[in-house]
Every structure is written in structure tokens, then in C-alpha cells.
């Protein structure tokens, strides 16, 4: 007499179990491959290291900063309210700001929106010399010498650009130099929408 192996009694049981295991393992592996492939496909975005701003959709942080060209005047959220503006963070020490400068200048010339310069952690003389050398595309430039207000805005590098609507709500933020492509495909349509949509 010989003992029956338990598996021969119910041949479908272990087979189905093995199939289920294979499907689960295969499915898990496939999911991992897809996740990694997605990660790789995202890695060629030029702004892959930029942090999403929690300010989007929220009111712009209240601020009032001295004007670079005349520190006896201050400009801030109160003065800018009522119409949309593009807030561009720059410094004379920042190479990326030079890269985007012609792009910004071209867009500012269209007068589609007020382009406000945010001179961040910069010596006023250096900033003024920089504007003289490369041209001043800004409607007004405010100076944040200490960088205190920048923390309220979540600014961590330059250049950074914020789009704020007429109600003072931050609509969009970009970290890194602006390009013609970004202006044409993102900024200009949003600004146009703000003008027509009220």
C-alpha cells in the first residue's frame, strides 16, 4: 500500500494557487516596471526639481517692500491689487536671470500684464547696474534685501515667477528661467483668460 500524495486528490487546488501566485508576482513586477518607466519619462522635464507651490489658489502673501529705484516709496499687495501681475524674482548675482531676461523683456513689451520685479537679496547698486546693462523690463522693482518676505512667498531660488490675478490670488508659479515656449503656451493664455474672463 502506498500513501496518496495529497495533491493528486484535488489537482485544481495547487494549480490554481500557483497560477494565482504567478499572476500576483507578475502583476506586481509589471506595476513596478510601469512605475519606474513613468519616473524615467518624467526625468527629462527641465523643472523636475522644482517644488510645487502650496500658494497656488491662495491669496498672495501680504507684503510691502521698498522700491529699488526710490526706497522712500513702498509697493506691496495693497498697491498691486485690482489687476493681475507677474512677479519675477531676480538678483544681479543670478545667472539664470540673465538667461531669461530677453524672454521676459519681450513679453513685458506686449503690455499684456504688469511685470513686477522682485529683487532678492541683492545690493541695490549691483541691481541698478544690472538693469542699466541689460535693460529694465519691469513696471516696478521692489527690493527684498534681507529675504524675510521671500520666505512668506516660499521663494528658494532665482529666477522664480508668480502669476497673481486681479483678486490677489496666486494662479501659477514657475521655478527657473522662463522660456518663450513657457510664455507662449502657459503664461500668455492664462493672462488672456484673466482679461477676458474678468
Amino acid at each position: 500500500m502506498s500513501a496518496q500524495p495529497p495533491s493528486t486528490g484535488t489537482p485544481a487546488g495547487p494549480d490554481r494557487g500557483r497560477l494565482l501566485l504567478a499572476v500576483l508576482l507578475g502583476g506586481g513586477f509589471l506595476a513596478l516596471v510601469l512605475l519606474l518607466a513613468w519616473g524615467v519619462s518624467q526625468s527629462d522635464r527641465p523643472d523636475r526639481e522644482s517644488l510645487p507651490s502650496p500658494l497656488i489658489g491662495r491669496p498672495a502673501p501680504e507684503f510691502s517692500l521698498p522700491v529699488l529705484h526710490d526706497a522712500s516709496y513702498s509697493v506691496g499687495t495693497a498697491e498691486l491689487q485690482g489687476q493681475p501681475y507677474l512677479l519675477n524674482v531676480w538678483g544681479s548675482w543670478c545667472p539664470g536671470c540673465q538667461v531669461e531676461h530677453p524672454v521676459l523683456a519681450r513679453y513685458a513689451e506686449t503690455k499684456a500684464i504688469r511685470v513686477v520685479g522682485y529683487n532678492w537679496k541683492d545690493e541695490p547698486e549691483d541691481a541698478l547696474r544690472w538693469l542699466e546693462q541689460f535693460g529694465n523690463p519691469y513696471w516696478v522693482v521692489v527690493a527684498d534685501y534681507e529675504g524675510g518676505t521671500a520666505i512668506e512667498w516660499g521663494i528658494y531660488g532665482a529666477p522664480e515667477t508668480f502669476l497673481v490675478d486681479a483678486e490677489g490670488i496666486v494662479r501659477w508659479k514657475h521655478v527657473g528661467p522662463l522660456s518663450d515656449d513657457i510664455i507662449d503656451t502657459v503664461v500668455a493664455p492664462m493672462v488672456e483668460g484673466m482679461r477676458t474672463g474678468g
Partner: protein
Amino acid sequence: MNACRIPALLALLLAAVLATALWPAPATAQAVRNVQPLEFHDRAEEQRFHALTLELRCVMCQNQSLADSDAPIAHDLRREVFNLMREGRSDAEIKAFLVDRYGEFVLYRPQFGGSTLVLWLGPAFVLLAGAIVVIVVVRRRAAGNRAALDPVDDGQEW
């Protein structure tokens, strides 16, 4: 002719070297400014500050903590953390302050829930799946061995 061309070639080479040296300039940059060191009241305050900044990520250099980073924005943020501590804010309030402005990315230990659920539970889930696979395999082998050994054992003295 040649003598005239060599300096030009050299200049071109020099320009190329300079261009490659300057080319990978980071897209985003940081102002350089020295900041005087923070002065703590006592050892406990310093320890609390250090523990807190170790759990906060430098937003500029993304893989360093706020405590380790030498980026100017890290200087500014350390000072901000310091000032908030002096105002009597709790660690949780200080973290919330930074998350409100810079996003949850600043936390080295992100909050549990929502979009971080996979991050928190993923490893446990993978471990559990592995344990299930091991248990199934071990049980099956044990069953198989028993089935194979039983007839052989039959008639043996031990």
C-alpha cells in the same frame, strides 16, 4: 599664415574651455551673504533647534537637511526657525509654518495620509507580500516532502 592662425586657434580653444566651464551654471542660483551665527540661550534650546532643523529639508539643495546645508536660503530659514522658536511656537507649529509656504517637501518625515499613504504603507505591504510568498512556498514544500517521505519511511525501524 600659420603663425597667424595659431593664436586664433588658441583663442578659440580658450573660449571653448571657458564656455564649458561656465555652461553648467545652475539655472537657479543663490545670493551669497554671510550671516552671523545664531546665539542660543542654553544647551536645551540649541538641542531643540538642532533636532528640529535635522527633520527639515533644505529646499534649495533638496538632499540635505536644513541643519547641514550651507545654502543662503538655508541660513535664512534657520534664522526663521530660530525666531519662531523664540516666539514660543511649538515644533509642530514651526513645521506647519514652513509646509504652508514651501510645501510638504520640507518635511523629512512627511505626514501620514493622503498622497503619502503609499510612501508609508508601501514597504509594509511589500514585506507582507514577501512573507505570504515565503509561507506558501514553505508549506507546499513541507507537504510535498511529507508525501514523498511517507512511503519510504514505511517499514523503517525509526
